[in-house]
């Protein structure tokens, strides 16, 4: 069956370093992936979308890659700040494409000053 996996353990890094979060998927080939940020007690907020034919997408300090061979998307935050501390969710469609999203369990990022 199709699976979306994100590291459930929190990622702790020092301010100024680059944070790298991983999203792995199995048993299918999503046409795109979305990444969201969720703060405690709040709804997720959309950050970036990357399509299967795009190797990399950037937005300010954020960079997302999409490796269809490894079946993996990486989410990078460069020059991380304590304000970047949050849970980050990846969300591909449940099938190869379509109207819905399937959200991974998210990875909590803690940036220490």
């Amino acid at each position, binding site marked *: 069956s199709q699976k*979306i996996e994100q590291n*459930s353990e929190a990622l702790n890094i020092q301010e100024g370093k680059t944070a790298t979060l991983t999203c792995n998927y199995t048993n299918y080939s999503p046409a*795109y992936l*979305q990444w969201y940020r969720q703060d405690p*007690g*709040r*709804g*997720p*907020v*959309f950050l970036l*979308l990357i*399509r299967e034919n795009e190797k990399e997408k950037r937005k300010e300090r954020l960079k997302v890659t999409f490796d269809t061979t490894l079946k993996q998307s990486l989410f990078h935050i460069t020059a991380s700040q304590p304000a970047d501390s949050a849970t980050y*969710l990846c969300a591909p*469609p449940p099938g190869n*494409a*379509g*109207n*819905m*999203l*399937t*959200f*991974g*369990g*998210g990875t909590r990022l803690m940036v220490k000053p």
Partner: protein
Amino acid sequence: SQTIHQWPATLVQPVGSPLSLECTVEGTSNPNLYWYRQAAGRGLQLLFYSVGIGQISSEVPQNLSASRPQDRQFILSSKKLLLSDSGFYLCAWSRGGGEQPQHFGDGTRLSIL
């Protein structure tokens, strides 16, 4: 600009009591609407989605139901709540499906006693 309102923010209900959570969207027409549930430390589980008035699709069998009486109003209901219904309920909208990002409300924290 578009906004999404969800209420109440917090709700404590006894087992067996009814439930009604409401979500409204402003500033857009004919949005796709979604209800998700998020258990503590877990990902988002899609409960219902709607592509138009009166059109509801259910993703998981449960004692919950959803209705869309107006274009920008989405209601989550239950006749008798179970302990397992506790969780964080999120409403979201998108402009169509596919790659369109989803925009979330701030959620309702539901505790069943």
